[in-house]
Structure formats: C-alpha cells, structure tokens
C-alpha cells in the first residue's frame, strides 16, 4: 500500500475515492518513480526489419563502450535459464488437435519477425550510456519479404513465418453447428453478408511500461517493481519465462497508470531486467519510451469477421455465421488465440434468439507485434460485428432496425437461455433496457432533429446497439481475500486483483460498509504481496468487482460471526442474542437502548480482540452477462467530413451497482476508447512491415471535447451467478459504443452508398464518401 505523508489537513474535503489524495498531490508512486542507489539501466536493441535472418552479430564495440556492464543476447538468456514468453493454452483446432504454439523468444535467435523485436539488451551505468553504446552494434541482416497483416499472410505464395504453420495459419477453431446453419440459410427469405473489420490498435495506458529489479545476493531474492493487473499472474508468468522460481521473486506494484489488459504478464524487458539484476547483483531499470512501447506492448484487435445472416419473411433471424480472420502477429503471446476463439464465439448470437449459429476462426501469423487483450478482448469486436450485421440486414431488406431487434430479442420468459452454440445466459431484459435507452435519447423526436440538422447543412445519423457480453470466467479455482483488523480497528484486505485506476479500494470498502457497517475510511485494500497463499484472479474480463467482491462479502460474514462472539462476552449474553441489523448492533431482548454502530462496537473491544479479527473470504464466481443499449446521434459536417457526437445515451444492465459514480466513470472511459477506435485510432504498417504510426504524432488519440456529455443510466436486474449479485462494468462501455457509433455513421452515410465503411471513420474517409455521391 502507498501511504501519503502530508502536513496539510484535508479532512474538510470529500473525496470521491479513497485512492485520490496521493494522486492529486503528485505523491502517487509509479514504477518509473522507483530508484535504487547505484541502479543500472537497460536499453533494448530492437529489430529494424519486419522479417529477417540474423546472419551475424558483432557486439564487441557495444561491450567496450563507456559505462557498459553487460550486453545480453539470446544465448545469455538461455544460459541463465530464460525461456520463451508465455502464451495462453493452445486452442483445440477444428481437426481435433491442439494448436501448435510458436512462442516469442525473449531475445531473437536466428530470426526476427517484427519491427521492434528485441535482439539484445545493453546494461550500463546510465540510460544515455546504454543508448549510446547500443548504436555501436554491428548486426548483419538478410532481409526477407514481410507479411504486413493477416490478409497479406494468407495470399497465395506469401512467405511463411514459422515452419510448423502452413499458410501462416496458427490454428483454426469452430463453434456451433454448420449443418444447422446451412439448413436455415437454405430456407431463408433474406440473406445479408458484410465484412466487418476491427482494426489494429495500441492499448495506450498512459504510464509507459517499466520494470525495476533489485537483487539481494544474501537472500537470493529479487524484488521486481512493475505495473501489473495482479501479482500472482505476473509472478507466475515471469517465473515461466525467466527461469527464476516464483518463490525467489517478490513483485511490488504500487500505482499503475492504466492496464486495459496489457499488463497481465511479463514481456522480454521483465526477463532482461531480472536476469541482469541477479547476474550483476545490482538494481537494473528499464522504462519504455512511448515510441518503444508502441513497438513492443502487445497490440490490440486486428480482427476481420465475415458475417452472414439469414432472416425469414417477417424479419426473424434464422441463423448467423461468422468466418473470422484473427491476426495474432508474429508469435503466440498471451491471449490472442483465446480472443479469436472463446471470446469471439461465446456471445456470437448477441441478444437475439437465433436458432442456428456457426463460427469459424483462423488465427494467422503476420510480421507485426503480437496481439493480445485490450479493453474487452474480443467482446467489443463480436458485439460490433453482430450489431452492424443486424443493422445492415434490416436496411438491406427494408426492416425497421429497432422493431426488428425488439422482436428478435431473447424474451425474459426464455431465461435461463442457452444459445445455439451452447452459452447459458442467466437473466437479461433487453426490451426493458432498450426501451429506457430510447426514451432517454428522445428517440421519438429524432426525425425532427435530423430535419433541422439537414436544414443547417449537416448530415445527422442515429445508431443503436444492443449488446451482451460474457465477462471473464477466471482461471483460478476461486477468488480469495484475507481481511485482518489492526489493533487500531483498521481493516486491511488483501486480494489478488490489482487496481490500475478502477478504484478497487473504494468499491471494496463500500461492500464492507454495507455488509459490516464499518466506515470506509477504516478500510484498506491491497493486491497481495509475494508469499501469499491466496488464490484468485487478476484484474481482467470485468470480473474484479464480483470476483473479489463476492469473496469480500463472504469475509464480512465470517467477521460478523467473530464480532458477535466477542460482543456476547462483553454483553454477557449468548451469541444468538447479538443482532446486527441495518448497521446497528444490539442485544435481542435486551434494554431499549439504541444499538451500537460497528465503530462503537470496535471501540468497545480490546486492542487484542480487534487484532484477533481476521478471516479469509472466498467465493467461486464464473462468467456473468453484462448487457445494455447505447443510442448515439452524430452529425457530419459535409464540408470537412468531421463528425461530432451530439447525443450519447448509455443504459447498462450490470447487476448490482456498488459505486454509481465509478460505474459511470468506467462507462465514460470505455465509450471514449470505443470512440477512439471508431473515429481515429489505427495502427498502420507499410508493405514492408514498417510501423508507420510510431508515435503520438501519427497515432491519433481521443481528446477532451470529443465526447461532450453522456446520458447514463443503469438497470439493476441482479444475478445469482455470484454472491455479490454484480455483473461487472469494465468492458461494457467499449462493447456498447463501437456498434452504436458505427450504426449512427452508417445511417448518415447510407444515402451516399457508403454503408460498408470500416472504422476508423476519419474525416478524410467520410468526406471522400460524401463527395463520391454528391
């Protein structure tokens, strides 16, 4: 935990989160802020080529440059026990065989397969010395043809990246029933087909990736400071690829400047810093520059979904089929194949009652940065694809998109509902959610607003999305938390999930306040430190609140029992007579005195009794099904092609809401990340596989004012899938926004014949579409 020391009394200020004070004072502690005396600096020599064979490498001039302490190559990594970087387990392929993984080496051996791939590490006394020395490297490359994306990699005659992957296909995967889908298509009255692309993105947490390792030669333990989404996964992954046993690594994560899925596990630089610190017996630090992390943080999305939909005469959906192409980049790292299989397929029927579903995905290598999880990890992409396809089909065949959605919704009476490809949804009410969203968006008067915009020379469009997503099932058996009261009556909770801005401490303290009556100021949350026996999942898949939160609820029940026993002794009554109701403790059948608050009760206990209050809470929680409806109105200026978002309504059904303002904050942030993808963000490689968008000069980011306001509402239907009754919110804003924004653009652009346009809807692309038809 980070503590702040300040002479100023801030008791007069109300804080919306307990995390905020240190951050607004500039007293946050991010990884780059960590210093050790005598620390060395690591610099990465990276490939300048997208695809090449390393013919020879002469690093002697680097080694003899001023200040250089060690120059590390693939051989050194191997000699010190390093292994390749981790990947999620292989996907079971259509042929019934598990996918053959081509994992990324920490440092390139004979081949480099993307621009930015690490080749050597230079460790020197100062950063500048390491950087200057690196320039003296003599590396002779034999440049090869490159596949700049999955489409290029699939062209006949394309160069092959890995010997085991014929046609550059890493795996193929299927879900659903192809024969059933074909039968439905055969009897369909209407069929539509649309290719939908979710372009490659950077995740862009504002804190660039960084890692500092300090080795203690006496204990042989290495302490690692790095942003993570939870210590256990970072520790386990790091142990896998560094060869250092888990028990010899302590991981310290203090403040984390955003994660969005990118920070689950170790990268090459983590391994380099750990091995260097252990070998040299000194602290070693690497802080990525933005340009560097653009070349090396796992990239996002890079998915193409070819969708087809079959409708009957009345517009009821008969079947949906997707043929996906998933660009995994140069290697299998972490989550790409999981995204391309489970996460795309699990909700592929969306919110609709669809008799037949089939998805086939091909994971394809290309000479690009490996892809992995980013805000939704396939969930926004499949929601985007379904909702664009449904909208497209409605317009193509003359159906009203809202009425058609409504009549195809899985009705409340059909829950629990099992989709045609086997996913079980517990309870949703899509009709109620959409009805509220349309009302809040004043959908009824949209035609008047559109006419007025047209009068003013603007092109207005309205888009609707109705989404459902499956949150993360979790990889741990259960989520556990350990609560320990101090002698002073402060409850410290340790869990596995690590915060990176979500406000874990604030929300978890609220749960304790509700369950146990303790004041939120007396509750701390920390992601568990090394040596914990706790099990649990890191942050990811929108599951922290209900995963760890359910365990906290269970912990509170245990603490309540312990307090009851202690209080019974103080009150000289039986524990059964001690009652805790509506935040107040009293004795059944006792005096008529008003009950005691939990604060009063804790004050009544002795310091020793207080510190005896500890409990390990646990809960098993699997996937939930957050859902919602976003309604967007946009206005295009035909003179410039620029689009303004003039009305944004998000109604999300997230189960129980613990912290309404934090939920709004998550939705705002998710929606604007969606807006970034919809209107400006895209990673571009040229035909040689050079990264064209290598800095913020070329990679457009959403800025203040891109979204001026948002109507937010939540519907709390609840869920019995976890103890807390929450469904999670981390990814829903992003998932709901992509299709709503795109459908609004399509409604505006359809009269101009541009309703197959791909994101990002840049002013240039939109302007050209308008010119072509006017």
């Amino acid at each position, binding site marked *: 935990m980070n503590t702040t020391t300040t002479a100023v009394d801030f008791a007069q200020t109300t804080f*919306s989160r307990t995390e905020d004070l240190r951050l607004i004072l500039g007293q946050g502690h991010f990884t780059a802020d960590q210093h050790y005396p005598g620390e060395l600096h690591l610099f990465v020599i990276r490939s300048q080529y997208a695809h090449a064979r390393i013919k020879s490498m002469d690093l002697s001039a680097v080694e003899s440059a001023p200040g250089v302490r060690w120059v590390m190559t693939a051989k050194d990594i191997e000699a010190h026990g390093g292994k390749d970087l981790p990947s999620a387990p292989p996907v079971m392929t259509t042929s019934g065989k598990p996918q053959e993984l081509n994992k990324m080496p920490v440092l390139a051996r004979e081949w480099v397969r993307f621009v930015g791939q690490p080749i050597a590490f230079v460790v020197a006394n100062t950063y500048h010395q390491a950087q200057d020395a690196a320039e003296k490297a003599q590396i002779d490359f034999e440049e090869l043809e490159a596949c700049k994306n999955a489409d290029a990699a699939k062209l006949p005659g394309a160069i092959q990246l890995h010997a085991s992957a014929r046609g550059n296909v890493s795996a193929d995967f299927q879900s659903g029933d192809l024969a059933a889908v074909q039968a439905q298509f055969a009897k369909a009255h209407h069929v539509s087909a649309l290719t939908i692309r979710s372009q490659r993105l950077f995740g862009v947490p504002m804190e660039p990736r960084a890692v500092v390792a300090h080795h203690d030669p006496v204990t042989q333990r290495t302490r690692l400071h790095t942003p993570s989404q939870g210590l256990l996964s970072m520790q386990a992954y790091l142990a896998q690829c560094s060869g250092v046993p888990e028990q010899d690594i302590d991981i310290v994560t203090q403040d984390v400047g955003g994660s969005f899925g990118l920070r689950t596990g170790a990268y090459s630089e983590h391994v380099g810093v750990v091995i260097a610190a252990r070998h040299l017996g000194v602290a070693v630090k690497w802080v990525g520059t*933005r340009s560097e992390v653009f070349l090396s943080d796992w990239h996002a999305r890079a998915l193409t979904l070819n969708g087809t939909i079959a409708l009957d005469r009345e517009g009821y959906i008969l079947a949906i089929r997707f043929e996906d192409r998933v660009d995994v980049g140069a290697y299998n790292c972490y989550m790409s194949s999981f995204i391309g299989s489970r996460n795309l397929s699990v909700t592929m029927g969306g919110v609709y009652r669809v008799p037949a579903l089939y998805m086939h995905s091909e994971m394809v290598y290309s000479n690009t940065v490996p892809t992995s999880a980013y805000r939704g990890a396939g969930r926004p992409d499949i929601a985007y694809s379904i909702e664009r396809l449904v909208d497209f089909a409605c317009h193509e065949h003359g159906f009203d998109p809202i009425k058609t959605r409504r009549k195809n919704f899985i009705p409340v009476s059909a829950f629990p509902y099992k989709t045609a490809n086997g996913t079980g949804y517990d309870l949703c009410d899509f009709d109620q959610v959409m009805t509220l969203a349309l009302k809040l968006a004043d959908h009824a008067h949209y035609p008047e607003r559109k006419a007025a915009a047209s009068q003013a020379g603007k092109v207005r469009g309205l888009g609707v999305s109705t989404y459902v997503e499956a949150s993360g099932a979790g990889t741990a058996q259960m989520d556990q938390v350990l609560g320990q009261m101090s002698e002073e009556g402060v409850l410290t909770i340790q869990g596995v999930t690590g915060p990176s801005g979500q406000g874990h401490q604030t929300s978890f303290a609220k749960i304790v306040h509700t369950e146990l009556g303790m004041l939120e100021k007396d509750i701390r949350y920390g992601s568990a430190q090394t040596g914990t026996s706790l099990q649990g999942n890191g942050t990811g898949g929108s599951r922290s609140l209900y995963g760890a939160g359910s365990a906290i609820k269970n912990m509170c029940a245990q603490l309540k029992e312990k307090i009851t026993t202690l209080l019974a002794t103080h009150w000289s009554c039986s524990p059964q007579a001690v009652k805790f109701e509506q935040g107040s403790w009293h004795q059944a059948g006792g005096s008529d005195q008003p009950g005691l608050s939990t604060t009063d009760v804790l004050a009544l206990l002795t310091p020793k009794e207080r510190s005896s209050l500890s409990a390990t809470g646990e809960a098993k929680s699997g996937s939930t099904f957050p859902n919602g409806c976003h309604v967007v109105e946009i206005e295009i200026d035909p003179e410039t092609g620029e689009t303004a978002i003039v009305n944004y309504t998000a109604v999300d059904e997230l189960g129980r809401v613990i912290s309404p303002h934090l939920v709004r904050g998550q939705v705002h942030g*998710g929606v604007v990340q969606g807006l970034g993808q919809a209107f400006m963000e895209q990673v571009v490689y040229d035909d040689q596989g050079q990264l064209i968008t290598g800095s913020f000069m070329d990679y457009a980011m959403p800025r203040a004012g891109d979204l001026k306001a948002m109507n937010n509402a939540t519907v709390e239907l609840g869920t019995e899938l976890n103890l807390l009754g929450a469904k999670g919110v981390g990814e829903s804003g992003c998932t709901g926004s992509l299709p709503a924004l795109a459908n609004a653009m399509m409604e505006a652009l359809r009269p101009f014949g541009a309703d197959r346009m791909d994101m990002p809807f840049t002013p240039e692309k939109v302007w050209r579409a308008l010119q072509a038809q006017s």
Partner: protein
Amino acid sequence: MTTASITVNGQLQTHEVESRTLLVEFLRDHCQLTGTHVGCDTSQCGCCTVIVNGDSIKACTVLAVQLEGAHVTTIEGLSKGDLHPVQKAFTQCHALQCGFCTPGMIMSSVDLIAKNPNPSKDEIAQGLEGNFCRCTGYVNIVEAVHEAAQAMRVGSRA
C-alpha cells in the same frame, strides 16, 4: 556537465546536469519531484505539464539549462495549506482514475483558469487538447475544471 539553478516550488534548486537534461529530468531525477510524469517522447501527451514563470509548459520541451533563474511550479507545489480548488474538483467530479495523467492535467487546468477565469466547457476542452487521458473519457475532467473555475470566482469575490 554544467550547473542549472531553478526555483522549484519556491525553493532554489541547483544541480550539476548534462546540457541535454530536460526540465522534466531535472525535476524527476535531480529534485526527486516525481509527481511530474513522462507519458511520451514527442511532447503530445501533456503528462509532464508544469508552470514556468506563470505559463504552463510541457517539461519535456525545454532544457533545464534554458531556465536559469526561472520559477517553476509542479504538482507538488500546488496545495498550500489546503488543496487547490482544481485538485478538489478533480476528486469531487471523479476526474481521475489511474492518476498518471492527473498532475499534468491539473497543472494545465490551473493555467487555463488563471488566463480565463470563466471558461466555457468548449474553451476548457480546447485548452486541454494537449493533455491525454486514457481512463476517464474526459467528460468528468472538463466538468471538474468548470467547477473549479466557478469555485475560484466565488472564492475571489469572498
């Protein structure tokens, strides 16, 4: 090596630096003021924004040796006895999540309000164009600056 003397948060800081040392490196590495963050290497993100002689600047765009004798205020120097109204508004409006962009965002906002005490939301958005945030979606940030400006106007009349 050369010497740079800069008054930071009211305190004269004199350090031996390389001539290529940026102001942000001077602050973080020599003054140990790590509240000023580095989020990019092309002066786009605004995480390193500080106030120099009354103007907000990105501390990665200027060399320490160029600022001999200058007065610099960083996030650490903003609260005097109580939180600055902009700091207060940021927490009250939930205008921060991870908090990495927050110091730069707050310093830009302080300068913006100093120069335009009654900004419209559009003016605020325009004024913060040089500061990126990946978590909040900006709506609450603009709201916070609007609230802070109002609080400061009321405060200055009192």
